[in-house]
């Protein structure tokens, strides 16, 4: 089955782009959280739930927003043929560490449900599905590095074996040092970028 990468987006603390073209300006901020909020504002987003999210879900939400802007997906209301396959290295570790702080000191022991809920990497998928009304196949995979082989295998099989017609897939990584999102929209048929392992590796490397 011929699959191609219709569109891809990249979000880093100093770079936000679509198909390797700059989308908006972003400037250096004191913290990763501030960078994410600035990106939100510069994109002109209006979604108050954003401010309840941890950094990882903020990043995933921004990446999906950039990716799905002005695409056919918005015209489809019954989106259970849209799959979401996300991956990263750190799972939800930043949120985990934050939550751990609320339980470390027996004298100041106040486990926070609002922090705990974000201690699962697949919450990113939940947030994307809620905002864009997506009901399809979904999975969150962990690997030390961006794994083009596994993503290719998984996405290809979803198109072959399920009713998937579109797939949002890629890498959404957030750790204490930095964040990076590389998210693609995969469709059936031809476009500039055929979905294969080499293309995935190149696009990710040169993002």
């Amino acid at each position, binding site marked *: 089955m011929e699959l191609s990468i219709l569109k891809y987006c990249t979000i880093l603390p100093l770079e936000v782009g679509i198909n390797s073209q700059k989308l908006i300006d972003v400037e250096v901020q004191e913290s990763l959280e501030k960078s994410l909020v600035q990106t939100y504002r510069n994109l002109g987003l209006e979604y108050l739930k954003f401010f*309840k999210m941890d950094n990882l879900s903020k990043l995933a939400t921004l990446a999906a927003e950039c990716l799905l802007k002005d695409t056919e997906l918005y015209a489809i209301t019954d989106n259970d043929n849209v799959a979401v396959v996300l991956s990263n290295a750190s799972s939800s570790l930043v949120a985990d560490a934050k939550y751990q702080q609320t339980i470390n000191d027996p004298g100041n022991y106040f486990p926070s449900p*609002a922090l705990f809920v974000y201690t699962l990497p697949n919450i990113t998928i939940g947030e994307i599905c809620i905002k864009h009304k997506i009901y399809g196949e979904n999975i969150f995979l962990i690997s030390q590095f961006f794994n083009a082989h596994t993503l290719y295998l998984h996405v290809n099989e979803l198109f072959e074996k399920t009713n998937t017609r579109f797939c949002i897939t890629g890498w959404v990584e957030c750790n204490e040092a930095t964040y990076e999102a590389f998210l693609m929209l995969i469709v059936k048929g031809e476009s500039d970028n055929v979905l294969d392992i080499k293309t995935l590796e190149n696009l990710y490397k040169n993002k």
Partner: protein
Amino acid sequence: MEALISELKEEIIKVLNLEGVKPEDIDNDAPLFGDGLGLDSIDALELIVLLEKNYGIKLEDPGKGREIFGSINTFAKYISENQKK
């Protein structure tokens, strides 16, 4: 009561990450859940933590939450009647 209400509004905005909401925007009698501030089930659970952390009140029955957190006024009233800190 005024001071408590004012402090409560600040705390709620901070703890629940209510972006763009200022204390003066919150009507003391307006519902906090549903249409009001649009708080959800996770917010309700965080308010239970707030009750204990800031005011020493342990809410054993989370079912009572909806009543107590109905509005700023019901919330403040509950705290002033049960405060331990």
